[in-house]
């Protein structure tokens, strides 16, 4: 095997979405040699699809707003398995991080006072749940992700960050001490394979919604970071926790923002009934996403779904009037007309719960340092590896993420990772070089794929994987169904590992990338399945027919999936915020 070309950096960020670019910006400003590896041009990353906004107590809509109220909502939303030190950090640092974005040029919508416009979102309250609905989500119309991602790209351009656009990272390189010392990456345009060596490798690879057949996620959301971590033998946390967004457009899967309900829209069943009043008498349509999604599925199961098949419900918006819709929700009007053939100004939008967000991921501390646990259950930092954004599980979302918290998560922890790495680099990072065999090990999967001759078609296998996950690990779960799903996955593993690559050319070979992505999708799916079967309770997004209650005695903890022996362990949740009293678990009602 010919030796690979090596490129060296102080910090390498894998992923050019919001988290990756915020981390990169921090490092680029520090003067350290930084590169971003992104499989798409950065502004094509999935952050661009975020619509409704970034939730943060900047006290614009309500001058008395308090980040502690936001923290309370987030802890409650997480169904109490979000780490309170991390949530405290996110909510308290949030305003600073949001103002930085504004100073960078993010075109937020404005109030009459000239401040950032904030809209109500689900699960938001004033005064620790006692003061009614809050309006805490900072918005740029309904294109906040677009505005945020472009602003971050522009900020990186201003600071001369090095981008490897349309490069694809395939696997982690570990040295003999088990430290991460970079990644193997392919330049898509030329097909060249390179060892990108780095003192700090930051995974900001986003989610993996494409493990499901019906998802709001982009084609590119294939869990590449999770796949790489699992193959390197590192664990993932709470990976059974998948958010199904209440309002994906039926059939198309395209998202319409929770901001629609924040602005006054509501869900109706076939009888025209505003059914959320029955399920969540106080918050109604702005209850937690898990609660709303389950209520919708129950309406459909009980025969009150809409349409000829009765397989969706309606989101009613027309009563808001054309002016509000066109100024506050212009993107939604566009998407609805294109994908639902429904004009929200005149008619309701057909919607159905759709896979949206991976709450679990690579466990990290608040500095973005990736963690594993030793034999005694103590946290161990994985040297050289960091994660932020959706791929990470820090954990601020626990068992259910609140709307608007993902953009805040990625900005705050992208920034925190960058800050930590900057300091670590300043005090000096020493790691042993990877040996030739370490590098060979890391590229072995790629080599095997390139030599494949037989095997099955990638698109067909992907479809089979997605329908397995959709059918066996959806909104409602039970042991019997999940076990069948796990059996199907066991059968799929070998077939996917041996999938066929017909196209061996070097030039912009997307078939090769899709085959590699399929391996990652599979790793995420299998971890999800095994962890979901193991967690014998209902909490947040994980709802089981056979264990309908939350079980704090046994499961008020993170799950930790270890890939080497496919074992599910437990890891303690942090209940020790630094500046406020612990929020004790209580019944979660909206």
């Amino acid at each position, binding site marked *: 095997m010919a030796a690979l070309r090596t490129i060296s950096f102080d910090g390498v960020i894998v992923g050019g979405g919001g988290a990756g670019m915020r981390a990169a910006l921090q490092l680029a400003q520090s003067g350290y040699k930084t590169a971003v590896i992104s499989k*798409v041009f950065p502004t094509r990353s999935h952050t661009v699809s975020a619509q409704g906004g970034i939730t943060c107590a900047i006290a614009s809509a309500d001058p008395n707003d308090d980040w502690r109220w936001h923290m309370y909502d987030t802890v409650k939303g997480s169904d109490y398995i979000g780490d309170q030190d991390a949530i405290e950090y996110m909510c308290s640092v949030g305003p600073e991080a*949001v103002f930085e974005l504004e100073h960078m040029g993010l*075109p937020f919508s404005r109030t009459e006072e*000239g401040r950032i416009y904030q809209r109500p979102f689900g699960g938001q309250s004033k005064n620790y749940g006692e003061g009614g609905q809050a309006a805490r989500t900072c918005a740029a119309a309904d294109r906040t992700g677009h505005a945020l991602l472009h602003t971050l790209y522009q900020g990186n351009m201003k600071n001369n960050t090095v981008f490897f656009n349309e490069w694809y990272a395939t696997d982690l390189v570990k040295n003999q001490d088990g430290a991460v010392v970079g990644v193997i990456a392919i330049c898509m345009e030329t097909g060249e394979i390179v060892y990108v060596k780095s003192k700090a490798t930051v995974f900001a690879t986003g989610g993996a919604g494409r493990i499901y057949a019906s998802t709001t996620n982009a084609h590119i959301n294939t869990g590449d970071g999770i796949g790489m971590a699992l193959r390197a033998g590192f664990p993932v946390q709470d990976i059974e926790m998948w958010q199904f967004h209440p309002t994906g457009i039926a059939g198309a899967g395209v998202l319409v923002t929770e901001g629609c309900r924040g602005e006054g829209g509501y869900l109706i069943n076939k009888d025209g009934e505003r059914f959320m009043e029955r399920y969540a008498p106080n918050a109604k349509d702005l209850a937690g996403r898990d609660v709303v999604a389950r209520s919708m599925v129950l309406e459909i199961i009980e025969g009150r779904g809409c349409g000829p098949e009765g397989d969706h419900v309606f989101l009613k918006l027309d009563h808001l009037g054309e002016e509000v819709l066109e100024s506050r929700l212009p993107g939604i009007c566009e998407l609805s007309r294109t994908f639902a053939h429904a004009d929200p100004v005149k008619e309701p939008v057909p919607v159905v719960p759709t896979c949206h967000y991976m709450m679990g991921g690579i466990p990290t501390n608040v500095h973005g340092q990736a963690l594993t646990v030793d034999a005694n259950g103590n946290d161990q930092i994985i040297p050289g590896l960091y994660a932020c954004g959706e791929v990470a599980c820090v954990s601020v979302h626990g068992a259910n993420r609140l709307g608007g918290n993902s953009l805040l998560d990625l900005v705050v922890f992208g920034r925190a990772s960058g800050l930590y790495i900057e300091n670590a680099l300043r005090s000096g990072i020493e790691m042993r070089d990877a040996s030739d065999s370490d590098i060979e090990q890391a590229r072995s999967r790629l080599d095997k794929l390139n030599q494949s001759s037989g095997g099955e078609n990638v698109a067909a296998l992907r479809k089979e994987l997605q329908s397995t996950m959709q059918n066996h690990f959806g909104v409602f779960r039970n042991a019997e169904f999940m076990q069948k799903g796990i059996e199907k996955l066991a059968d799929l593993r070998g077939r996917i590992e041996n999938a066929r690559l017909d196209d061996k050319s070097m030039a912009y070979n997307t078939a090769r990338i899709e085959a590699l992505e399929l391996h990652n999708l599979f790793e995420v799916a299998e971890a999800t399945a095994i962890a979901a079967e193991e967690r014998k309770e209902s909490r947040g997004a994980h709802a089981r027919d056979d264990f309908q209650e939350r079980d704090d005695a046994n499961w008020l903890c993170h799950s930790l999936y270890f890939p080497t022996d496919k074992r599910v362990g437990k890891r303690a949740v942090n209940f020790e915020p630094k500046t406020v009293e612990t929020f004790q678990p209580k019944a979660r009602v909206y």
Partner: protein
Amino acid sequence: MLQVSIYRYNPETDSEPYMQDVQVDTGGKDLMVLDVLELIKSQDTTVTYRRSCREGVCGSDGMNMNGKNGLACITPLSETVRNNKLVLRPLPGLPVVRDLVVDMSMFYAQYEKVQPFLMNDTPAPAIERLQSPEEREKLDGLYECILCACCSSACPSFWWNPDRFIGPSGLLQAYRFLADSRDTATEERLAKLDDPFSVFRCHGIQNCVNVCPKNLNPTRAIGHIRNMLLSRAT
């Protein structure tokens, strides 16, 4: 069966590009053009194109469909197919990397040239910089650009001078910062644009407006920049 004709070129194996005819069973549905490409790729994995969000917000899948630039993911067959025929070509005027994938470096270089980031030399306040809803409204129709290159690659002036004419997309972004009440670098920005090529190669034929998948109006933005340059000169 829909008759699809796709531009094919793999620099490793083809001495020159060719059109490949494929028949696609759409099941009678009004699919998006991207769905059709995905159906084709599930059979022939060598067919190459970019795609990401599949909902018209990331700008990956700009291409030329039956002679008109647009995004494959939000273009329904009913909007583009005539006589049961769909001809797919890469965006015109840019070098082809492979099949429908074009080299966008020249396009991005023009974007970078306009310094598309906020410049403000006053110290930042502890909170956000204030901006009235009226001032903010001036950015509507500008900040939504997704850099898909449909406009610039439909512009003859850009085909002729891709190195010197900024092109509609870059100029739309130039004006997005000129129009931002928070930006203090108006003079510096205008000085950089004040030459015979950067702005004035636009002849107002509005191909850009005609193809923009986000319904933006680069020609109007260019008109505003012209006026600013002219009033600066007098």
